[in-house]
């Protein structure tokens, strides 16, 4: 058995890190579009309109059962054909990143909508009523009173799902996206399989750091939110 070469890890980190922006951009894009989708879905459920509520429910239930890799492949193979046959758009030559974005937007939207909905529903309806009763418009009541409170409730869950999204995003290399994972695999095949373990370890270190950053910064935000309240009151 070939001995493990520790020093290869910092070496390969230098080759991997230039591709971190790709990973982060996919992540940020999925968070942004997924949150928009999540908002639409959560709104459909909260409003209690029959048809759109049921559709949102069904969508969320399906996504809950869908392995990310399966959806990624369905989007990768299915989306070009779907667009070609419906609106005649040929996206076969398109950036791989688009497929990744679409996939994780679809997945993250479902997760996000559940967090938004449960946070919103945990806020007493009386808060909204009090706001409109002193003349705020329904939008102002939502934006100024409900949203800040719901956000505070959602923070711990939000941190969790961001971490999961970050980790699931590592699958993008399976359709050929060159993010840190993709680059790692390129390096391994360039070395004819040597130092595979060291490369994977380096990748694990990067992901571990990223999730710790997410976790710690949310912990910090939560703490400072509750601290702010106490210090002003006392």
């Amino acid at each position: 058995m070939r001995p493990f070469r520790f020093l290869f890890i910092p070496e390969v980190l230098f080759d991997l890190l230039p591709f971190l922006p790709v990973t982060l951009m996919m992540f940020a894009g999925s968070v942004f579009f997924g949150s928009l989708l999540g908002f639409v879905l959560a709104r459909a459920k909260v409003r209690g309109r029959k048809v759109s509520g049921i559709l949102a429910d069904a969508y969320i239930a399906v996504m809950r059962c869908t392995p990310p890799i399966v959806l990624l492949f369905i989007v990768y193979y299915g989306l070009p054909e779907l667009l070609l046959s419906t609106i005649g758009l040929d996206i076969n030559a398109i950036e791989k990143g688009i497929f990744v974005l679409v996939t994780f937007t679809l997945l993250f939207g479902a997760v996000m909508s559940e967090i938004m909905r449960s946070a919103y529903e945990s806020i007493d309806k009386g808060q909204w009523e009090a706001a409109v009763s002193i003349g705020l418009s329904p939008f102002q009541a939502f934006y100024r009173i409900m949203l800040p409170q719901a956000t505070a409730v959602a923070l711990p869950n939000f941190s969790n799902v961001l971490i999961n999204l970050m980790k699931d995003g590592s699958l993008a290399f399976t359709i050929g996206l060159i993010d840190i994972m993709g680059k790692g695999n390129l390096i391994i095949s360039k070395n004819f399989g040597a130092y595979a373990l060291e490369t994977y370890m380096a990748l694990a270190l990067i992901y571990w750091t990223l999730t710790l950053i997410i976790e710690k910064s949310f912990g910090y935000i939560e703490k400072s939110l509750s601290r702010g309240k106490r210090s002003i009151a006392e």
Partner: protein
Amino acid sequence: MLELKNIHKSFNNNEVLKGVSIRVKKGDVIVILGPSGSGKTTLLRCINFLERADKGEIFFDDLRVNIRTASPADISRIRKRTAFVFQNYNLFNNKTALENVTEGLITARKVPKPEAIEIAKKALSKVGLSDRENYYPSKLSGGQQQRVAIARAIAVNPDVILFDEPTSALDPELTGEVLAVMKQLAREGVTMVVVTHEMSFARDVANHIVFMDGGVVIEEGSPDEIFSRPREDRTKQFLSRILPVWDYVI
């Protein structure tokens, strides 16, 4: 000034308001009495469009609104002329006492911030809470929270304030402080519609009493008429249950 005409409201085939009409003049303190489930809360909520009545009209001076066809602009106009004090206070949890009071001024009425703060401070001092301006609701007692809620209501200078059992969630020793504030407002000529079970408040402060049961107004009149010479059997029955015997004397 404010007139409700023939308000109807059902919750899934259960008709809760069966044609209620009420007239409020400027400076009136109207107390609505009635057994539990008679539709008092629902009526107040319909005035403020927290509940949308099925049928009826609301006249606010020259503003005439048919509830069924009311536009969002109509609703907003009516809400800006009324304020609501809730049974469970509903202070904004994410805002301090002062911010609770300025919110309606700054956001809904576009009052400049310094001016809003000045108005809010006056309102808070009126309810005796100047020293609690920067407290969050979770750090206030129930009675204090309700007084902030009243300050929030008077700060926006509404034509009429609607109170839904403002003291019923409070311990007996805290109801006094809230009732005192309401009495003070009545003396200053603030128009109020109050749902309450506090009979002493009804008798001493109200100038008009409305007795409701089963979604209709059974009887109305001055406190003296209602308490000393009730005409309807249901009113008598209700009062005999709620008033201790000695309350009839005097």
